[in-house]
């Protein structure tokens, strides 16, 4: 019967560790070389953790922006409905629905990235402990043993640390792959924001729904106020109900002359 997965993986690690050991003639050189390699990897792991954290923060910023935009569209929908413009309200809510999909996707990716970040942080701590232990062992071996005796000791220590290095190296690779995917997505959302499909973060530019609502509310605020006063004088229902009563039923679109133009600003 052939060797299973875990045996084969173990053999691959050992073979690679032995190959690395065979490169140096003097065991003490091997120790020093290996230690240098470990320090380099530790640096790489720390950079990897920092990169993933940066990506995660960027994602959080985008999520906040999208959620803010989504809330704004919901308000616009409500306001448009209060002004009797169901067509505008529908447009706002349609856009909000598309945004919500983006938010859901980003939240999922955010969780994934957080998981990778935690794993990488743990791997980094584990590697740090192994590297510290290796340094101690390296000095002990160098001080205590002859070259021939050292070979066996080095082999054991080296195999142990090689595994850890390989394991952590793969964790970095994975996190980098995930980060690259997310950066591509984050870039796409930046482009959407830049194109005006999403609000710019400064909030200075007016989108078409806001512009239309502003145009409408210029007159309707007065109307609302009048309705409120009338209601007060008659001691009857609220202005809001009076306005709603004035509509020709739900689902009916606005008159042709009031149809909004959804041109890009």
């Amino acid at each position: 019967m052939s060797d299973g997965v875990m045996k084969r993986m173990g053999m691959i690690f050992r073979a690679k560790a032995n190959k690395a050991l065979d490169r140096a003639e003097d065991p003490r050189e091997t120790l020093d070389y290996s230690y240098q390699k470990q320090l380099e990897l530790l640096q790489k792991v720390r950079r990897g953790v920092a990169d993933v954290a940066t990506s995660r923060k960027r994602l959080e910023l985008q999520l906040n922006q999208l959620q803010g935009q989504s809330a704004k569209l919901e308000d616009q929908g409500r306001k448009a409905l209060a002004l009797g413009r169901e067509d505008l309200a529908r447009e706002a809510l349609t856009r909000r629905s598309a945004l919500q999909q983006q938010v859901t996707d980003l939240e999922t990716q955010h969780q994934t990235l957080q998981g990778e970040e935690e794993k990488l942080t743990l791997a980094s701590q584990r590697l740090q402990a192994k590297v510290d232990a290796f340094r101690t062992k390296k000095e002990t071996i160098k001080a205590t043993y002859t070259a021939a005796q050292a070979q066996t000791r080095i082999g054991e220590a080296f195999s142990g640390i090689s595994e850890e290095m390989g394991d952590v190296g793969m964790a970095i690779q994975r996190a980098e792959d995930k980060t690259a995917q997310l950066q591509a997505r984050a870039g796409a959302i930046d482009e959407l924001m830049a194109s005006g499909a999403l609000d710019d973060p400064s909030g200075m530019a007016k989108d078409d729904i806001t512009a239309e609502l502003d145009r409408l509310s210029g007159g309707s605020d007065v109307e609302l106020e009048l309705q409120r006063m009338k209601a007060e004088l008659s001691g009857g229902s609220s202005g809001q109900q009076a306005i709603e009563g004035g509509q020709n039923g739900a689902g009916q679109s606005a008159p042709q002359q009031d149809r909004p133009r959804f041109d890009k600003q």
Partner: protein
Amino acid sequence: MIVRIMGEGQVKLDDAHFTELNKLDDELLDEMESGDEAGFRRTLGALLEAVRRMGTPLPDDALEPSELILPAPDATLGEVREMLGDDGLIPG
């Protein structure tokens, strides 16, 4: 014997458990070779669970080589194939 779970660390196990682990390990290999992703996930989960249950974690600063190495819990069939297929295990 010592088993490494990639991404988690090393676990020390009594050799008596070797038979049970081998059986699961052979199953895992069959599922990997036949491309049975669902079976692979199930068996890998069972194998990891058995190792965690029967073993004692080794301290982080131990420098012991592992006799057996297991993929991370969320490793895909493709990733494991890649690890076994080339020399992509140790950086540098």
